């Protein structure tokens, strides 16, 4: 592909990649191939179905500088749990411990590279996964040993920071050995000083009988761009659980692709998002049932207000032969004020007959009867609205069984809702 065919933004990242190359570890040809793939795909056009409700024009108009390896520690918010590792622009600062919070840790120096920088094909975020593979500076491998059971939670705080608009490319691979159990908390933050772009990739595999609970908190700055791709392969009788909270960034897109590969593999993906201000939050969840007796649940609750926009695109595909599968999708949304928008698209693709699949979605306002009841009990209008909105999100938040994290999300929702409802009441 000649350089003239590239859009200015794509060309910018390719040039930046050339400059940064000497500092990047791993096999050069793998990085170059990833960059070429990104250059080939470029930024999504306006008519691309996967980006129907999310325009990247603003992102494409910016010229972020890809981060170089971090050398100095930065301030990070307090941890929710005891075991924590901070990654600055994707790379750990200083010496990485050999194990932490129930996981063995590896980096590009110690881990097999094909696990850390492998290409993730398909879908609307393939281009960004490729860009990440080219530019990621400190990919991290978390692994467990067979049968290892851990009740600890490992928190990874991913900080994006820089002296100007910075592109961070954090990349984490998780390999759960057969029969192991672990919990992981990923917290996305930034310094808020500039308009940053975080382009993250999580590449997760669960062997037979493994169990992983992933808590995710996206609380980036008001000006941040965040694109994340999560690729999860679930083996026989293994279970992947995700508890997602999306509260920050100006524009965030999360693609969660879960492939239920083994018999009786299961996944449960729940989340809340708050699209207030002019925030644009887009969640794509794609669950592929590829074996018999697989089960999936998706349950997202969204709140949009002001000029905020929430996008939910869930998809369950039951492939031919995946009999006795069970796929459920629920998406409920609240539109609190005019000017806000919710776009929701719960897709089902079924190629097997002995299955139970359903989806339900609702979008509306707070129930006037419930509101009236609370008012009659002496609550002010903002209090009543806030209580009902919290209860709406609470139904999903109740599944976040890590208390400090749950409290933080509740408090943050409270703080923002009170402000929001006072203004609009």
């Amino acid at each position, binding site marked *: 592909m000649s350089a003239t065919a590239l859009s200015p933004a794509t060309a910018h990242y390719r040039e930046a990649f050339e400059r940064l190359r000497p500092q990047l570890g791993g096999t050069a040809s793998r990085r170059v191939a990833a960059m070429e793939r990104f250059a080939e795909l470029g930024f999504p056009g306006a008519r691309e*179905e996967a980006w129907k*409700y999310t325009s990247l024009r603003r992102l494409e108009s910016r010229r972020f500088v890809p981060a170089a390896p971090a050398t100095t520690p930065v301030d990070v918010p307090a941890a929710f749990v005891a075991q924590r590792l901070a990654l600055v622009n994707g790379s750990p600062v200083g010496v990485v411990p050999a194990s932490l919070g129930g996981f063995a840790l590896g980096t590009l120096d110690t881990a097999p590279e094909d696990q850390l920088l492998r290409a993730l094909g398909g879908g609307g975020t393939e281009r960004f996964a490729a860009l990440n593979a080219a530019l990621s500076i400190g990919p991290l491998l978390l692994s467990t040993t067979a049968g290892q059971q851990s009740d600890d939670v490992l928190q990874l705080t991913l900080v994006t920071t820089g002296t100007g608009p910075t592109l961070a490319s954090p990349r984490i691979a998780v390999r759960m050995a057969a029969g192991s159990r672990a919990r992981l908390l990923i917290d996305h933050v930034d310094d808020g000083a500039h308009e940053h772009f975080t382009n993250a990739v999580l590449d997760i595999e669960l062997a037979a009988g493994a169990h992983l609970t992933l808590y995710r908190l996206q609380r980036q700055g008001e000006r941040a761009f965040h694109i994340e791709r999560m690729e999860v392969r679930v083996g026989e009788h293994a279970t992947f659980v995700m508890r997602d909270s999306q509260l920050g960034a100006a524009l965030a897109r999360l693609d969660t692709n879960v492939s239920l590969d083994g018999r009786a593999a299961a996944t449960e993906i729940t989340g809340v998002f708050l699209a207030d201000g002019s925030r644009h939050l887009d969640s794509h969840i794609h669950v592929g049932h590829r074996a018999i007796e697989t089960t999936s649940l998706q349950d997202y609750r969204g709140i949009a207000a002001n000029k905020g926009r929430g996008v939910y695109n869930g998809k369950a595909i039951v492939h*031919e*032969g995946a*009999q006795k599968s069970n796929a459920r999708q629920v998406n409920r*949304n609240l*539109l*609190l*004020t*005019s*000017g*806000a*928008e*919710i*776009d*929701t*698209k*719960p*897709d*089902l*693709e*079924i*190629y*097997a*007959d*002995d*299955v*139970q*699949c*359903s*989806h*339900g*979605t*609702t*979008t*509306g*306002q707070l129930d006037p009867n419930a509101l009236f009841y609370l008012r009659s009990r002496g609550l002010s209008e903002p209090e009543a609205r806030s209580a009902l909105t919290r209860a709406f999100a609470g139904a999903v938040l109740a599944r976040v069984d890590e208390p400090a994290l749950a409290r933080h999300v509740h408090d943050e929702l409270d703080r923002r809702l009170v402000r929001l409802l006072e203004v609009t009441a």
Partner: protein
Amino acid sequence: MASTPTDLDALVAQKYQHGFVTDVESDTLPPGLDEDVVRVISKIKREPQFMLDWRLQALRHWHTMANPDWAHLRIAPIDYQSISYYSAPRARTDGPKSLDEVDPKLLATYEKLGVPLHERARLAGVAVDAVFDSVSVATTFKDKLSKAGVIFCSFSDAVQNHPELIEQYLGSVVPYTDNYFATLNSAVFSDGSFVYVPKGVRCPMELSTYFRINAANTGQFERTLIIADEGSHVSYLEGCTAPMRDENQLHAAVVELVALKDANIKYSTVQNWYPGDENGVGGIYNFVTKRGECRGASSRISWTQVETGSAITWKYPSCVLTGDNSVGEFYSVALANHYQQADTGTKMIHIGRNTRSTIVSKGISAGRGQNTYRGLVKILPSAEGARNFTQCDSLLMGDKCGAHTFPYMEIRNPSAVVEHEATTSKIADDQLFYCRSRGVSEEDAVNMIVNGFCKVVFKELPMEFAVEAQNLLAVSLEGSVG
């Protein structure tokens, strides 16, 4: 519920019942599409200049467009230059003055289809504007309708006799730029039906048209325009069957409905084009653009469809709810058996205040059929108090078929309430077992369960259609469950 060879044999043996070709001499243009073809069509139909200009605009626009590929369909490439764009039964004099003058072979064709034109029309009290290939050959009950002031005629007649209505309303709901197939239709449409119901008139009978594709290699491009003036009420029935043929035939129709203040339009369809044989050979390609606009306040448009035919169905009857308090409805049963593919659904665009819409879609997949529901519910910021309820259920019969749901919901008004629910299931063994234990044969039990599954849609159909639809479903599914 094990699949036995006997069931499969029955499935394979299931033939299209309406498959035959009538040998009628046709005036057919040579295959190909260019501006000259459009000029010839317009000339044959003795159209005024504005029609020709409109057609040419559409053709020029069509050349700038690409064949859409977003539907969940596998379509062999269509060579638009190998299709003949006009075919008319040969005129004996200057067209038939009465049924007696109609080509007897044509009438015999309707007999074979079970549509005894005059008999059925008289007994059922239905006016039939029968479209054979591309030209209307007979219209009945004109007198009764004209007494009520209702205009019900072929599109060609409307262009001759009511050009002002055509000029005002043609393309006002589906503009010639709308989509690939609608644009193609705008350029080359040969005929169709036109209905105008004047202010305050309740149309005295159900209006009905039977479409039928006959001559080889002629795509059929129908155009229907229905205008319900203020406070009027009309129910329109459309049903199709087509003869058996090995080559894929293209059908790209456009239906436009306009409902003014307080008007009510009910549009029902039973579609049974040739679906191809049990190996997926042949069958009609059915690309239809149907859209109604509730232009006036408190108007109502209701679409009901039973889609059992066609190799490929690409069809999204839609409602643009512009008027305050207007109502849009969509009830659908779609069946995909053998190698049939259906990508169908609706769009409800809420613009006016307190607009309401209901969507009920029932998809049945059997054999290797692929059935897709695709729908859009769009609530614009102006649609204060808008309300939508959508339910789409899929029934799967066999492990080689597919049922898919792609619902789009775009909500931009906080006072709107939008609900969507969907389920996918098969006929439960315990349901079947219960019926069998009561002495009901397996085939009857399946029919009963399927009819129960579809009941909520069938009850929206006019009575005589509801019976036909049930039979059609039973025939289409014969032997596909075991």
